[in-house]
């Protein structure tokens, strides 16, 4: 039978506020265990939470960037369950009155743009981290992450393939990073997702029974888990079986998922309004103030890059989907560099460096002005493109302007014909065989000699001048 897939996602993103959601502890990743916490975020008896206003602001910002309605009246609720990483044994979250609702995020599919609906975005606190001893029968808890602010973005079941779901994840990440509310570092756990997936016979209106995967912490793992789950459910139905509502755990190393708990074991969280906090009242004025601070969103960037800047859809997509790269690109062209050259450098050599160095675009140590200067140095003929490729890694290593690096390392291109001629003559004298080859018509000998000359000049000889001189001198020999 032919089936269609229905996917809904819940994305948890840590907010990049300075302090935690209910106390004044620093909101920073890592640190020595249990040093970034206080009586409030470890839930000692008698302490009370006080909501960080910035968290509400960031949630509104995310909501506006994802086309949500912002609630005027919202409240926080307690979600009760026991686990050692949850110090109060309840998580302060939002149950029935989230800050944002009814939004959408556009994604590109093979059939064009599709809007994926958002049910809601709400605020909540993160839990600590359990560390199980490798040897010995104990576990330790690190509460540094406890009380870090999160937003949970809940989609409608609008995605019909793992590819669409992946595109949605990438769009959401691009938007969150672009508006600056989350750094979305998956390796630090600041973005995680829960997957709800079901399948149904093609044409059937009712949804099939869905399974849930919790806390998947990379996009590629999410993608593979969805592909696996699609196949698993098809196999069950084709064999005449029934899909059970259950929570499954994805093992990305083995590439399989296993059952974690069944519907019967589902927890009753006993949500009720958090009596220690007042309702969150949001005025229209505040929303408008926040709206004014929204930067150009990825979709708008894409339109500008493909429109007035004339980039290809592919290049524009890569740049607009990555805030760090887009910022570098925008700043490079603001500093006078051409759009195409800037895009080529960013998507070519710079991306290659990032990959090799295992770095994120946000971590690029130089700015668009430096990139523009590098491009200008080539334009002016101060350095060749080859030399520029050598300057770039130095820019990653040392906090210096390209012109300074060129100066210090003596990389300035040799354009003086006399100096180049001297090198050409020396190389010709040292390679009589190549000269003879040239004379009997072996054209590749010219290339060999050019290479030798560039090498002798440590790459600094102006390639055009070298070619011109060689073409003049060789026939005369």
């Amino acid at each position, binding site marked *: 039978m032919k089936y269609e897939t229905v996917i809904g996602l819940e994305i948890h993103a840590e907010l990049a506020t300075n302090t935690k959601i209910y106390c004044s502890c620093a909101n920073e990743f890592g640190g020595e265990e249990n040093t970034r916490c206080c009586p409030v975020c470890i839930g000692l008896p008698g302490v009370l939470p*006080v909501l960080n206003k910035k968290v509400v602001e960031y949630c509104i910002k995310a909501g506006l960037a994802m086309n949500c309605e912002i609630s005027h009246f919202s409240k926080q609720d307690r979600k009760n369950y026991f686990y050692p990483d949850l110090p109060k044994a309840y998580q302060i979250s939002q149950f029935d009155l989230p800050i944002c609702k009814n939004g959408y995020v556009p994604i590109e599919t093979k059939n064009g743009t599709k809007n994926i609906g958002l049910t809601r975005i709400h605020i909540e606190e993160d839990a600590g981290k359990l560390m199980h001893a490798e040897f010995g029968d104990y576990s330790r808890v690190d509460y540094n992450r406890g009380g870090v602010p999160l937003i949970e973005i809940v989609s409608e079941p609008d995605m019909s393939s793992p590819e669409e779901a992946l595109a949605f994840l990438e769009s959401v990440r691009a938007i969150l990073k672009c508006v600056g509310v989350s750094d979305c570092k998956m390796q630090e756990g600041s973005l995680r997702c829960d997957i709800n997936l079901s399948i149904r016979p093609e044409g059937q209106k009712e949804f099939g029974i869905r399974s849930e995967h919790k806390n998947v912490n990379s996009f590629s793992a999410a993608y593979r888990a969805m592909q696996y789950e699609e196949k698993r459910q098809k196999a069950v139905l084709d064999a005449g079986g029934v899909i059970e509502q259950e929570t499954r755990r994805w093992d990305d190393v083995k590439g399989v998922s296993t059952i974690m708990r069944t519907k019967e074991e589902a927890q009753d969280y006993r949500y*009720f309004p958090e009596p220690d906090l007042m309702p969150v009242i949001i005025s229209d004025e505040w929303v408008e103030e926040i709206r004014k601070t929204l930067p150009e969103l990825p979709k708008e960037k894409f339109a500008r890059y493909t429109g007035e800047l004339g980039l290809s859809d592919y290049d524009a997509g890569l740049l607009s989907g990555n805030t760090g790269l887009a910022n570098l690109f925008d700043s490079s062209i603001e500093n006078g560099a051409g759009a195409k050259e800037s895009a080529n450098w960013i998507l070519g050599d710079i991306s290659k460096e990032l990959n090799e160095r295992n770095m994120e675009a946000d971590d690029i140590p130089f700015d668009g002005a430096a990139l523009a200067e590098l491009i200008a140095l080539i334009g002016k003929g101060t350095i060749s493109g080859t030399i520029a490729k050598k300057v770039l890694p130095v820019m990653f290593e040392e906090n210096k302007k390209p012109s300074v690096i060129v100066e210090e390392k003596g990389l300035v291109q040799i354009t003086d014909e006399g100096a180049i001629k001297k090198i050409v003559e020396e190389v010709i004298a040292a390679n009589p065989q190549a000269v003879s080859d040239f004379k009997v018509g072996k054209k590749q000998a010219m290339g060999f000699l050019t290479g030798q000359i560039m090498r002798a000049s440590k790459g600094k000889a102006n390639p055009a001048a070298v070619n011109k001189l060689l073409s003049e001198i060789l026939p005369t020999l």
Partner: protein
Amino acid sequence: MSNLYELTAHELADKLAKKEVSSAEICENQFKRIDEVEGDVEGYITVLHDEAMAKAKEIDTKRAAGERLSPLAGIPIAVKDNICTKDIKTTCASHMLYNFVPPYNATVSEKISDLVIIGKTNMDEFAMGSSTENSYFKKTKNPYNLGCVPGGSSGGSAAVVSADEAIIALGSDTGGSIRQPASFCGVVGFKPTYGRVSRFGLVAFASSLDQIGPFTKDVEDCALLLNQITGHDVKDSTSLNVPDEDFTQYLNADIKGMKIGIPKEYMGEGISEEVRNAVLSAAKLYESMGAEVEQCSLPMTPYALAAYYMISSAEASSNLARYDGIRFGFRAKDCKDLEDVYFKTRSEGFGKEVKRRIMLGTFVLSSGYYDAYYKKAQQVRTLIREDFGKAFEKYDLLLAPTAPDTAWKFGEKSADPVQMYAADICTVSLNIAGLPGMSFPFALDKNGLPIGVQLIGKAMHDGDIIRAGYALEKNSAYTKTKPQLGGAN
């Protein structure tokens, strides 16, 4: 000179200001009294002799140096053991927190930082109870009759003020836990408007109902202690952001023209004859002072008790979930896995009444029951607020019993929790509505046990209660009979 411990805080403050006496002398005398009668009363969980004497001397030095001090600086105060005191054990009278030493002060503990904390007082475990019999550590006795309970949950604080083991004390009131023991022990007990006193550092029982308040020997001390502990606190989101008020301005017995209602639902079945008569004679006294007194009605009253026990237990089930044996406090031995740690720790660490309420609260919040119980209780809460709202359109103040009866004997009600809960009938509605209330000692019953009358005010009109209480105090024919203890009186 009589013993210093028999005096009120304002009398001692005068003597301190006039340098007739030092704080160290007051405290020494206070500890002498504690030595004499604490064996009978057992009001304290922790007595802080050395810390208090050091503090008293420190305040004396500051006073001698002319430093700015609060009006009650150097006065001994007892603090209920559910209010966090930095570096001083705070147990909530529970095995669960038998060794818990908070690394921080409650906001009120900061606010009384130039008073001298002489001890932490006994209470019903986690403030759940009406007799202080639910303490893990000891049974506090009623100073007027050692065979009777002091009331609860702040029974320790009420008893130590009554027995002159403290000049003043702090308690907490979730459903009557200040007013009812104040009534039983013959002292003044005040529950402020919800949000006037910061709850930061008060170990939560039911967050939307809990409020800290004073126990004192007279109304003037009550006003002074309110001045000391009230005020907006950024650490408590439910704290009211209103300007500070000087409650001593209400120490004025002129209540002419004040309109006082007596809700008939508080005077009916279950209220003892002697208690009812006390309220009626207080009413007469008010009339004689020029107030208008008449009967009124709060028709939702019969639903208050059920709503209170559902809301308070629901919040408690969540507030007390953090006591899991993982980070602090008691942890059961010989646990085989995580679930076992939770199960054994919570089974062994909590007393019977606490477990009963956690189960009740967990039940009313459970999916499938939430609407029928918790949500319904919240709807009743709204109706009770409206009830009071209507009454206060007509009256400035309401007058009622604090408790249906005077102190009962140990064990008399502890076997039947519902009977025990019914004793809170006159006090819980105020917590549900967030209103201020005071129990004022107004008479003794035929057995020589104190009877308190309750004054209920509009939200934020705590001052009206002080004024009316002060008027009773100045005009009442009842001269307070001190409890007979230790042969000292």
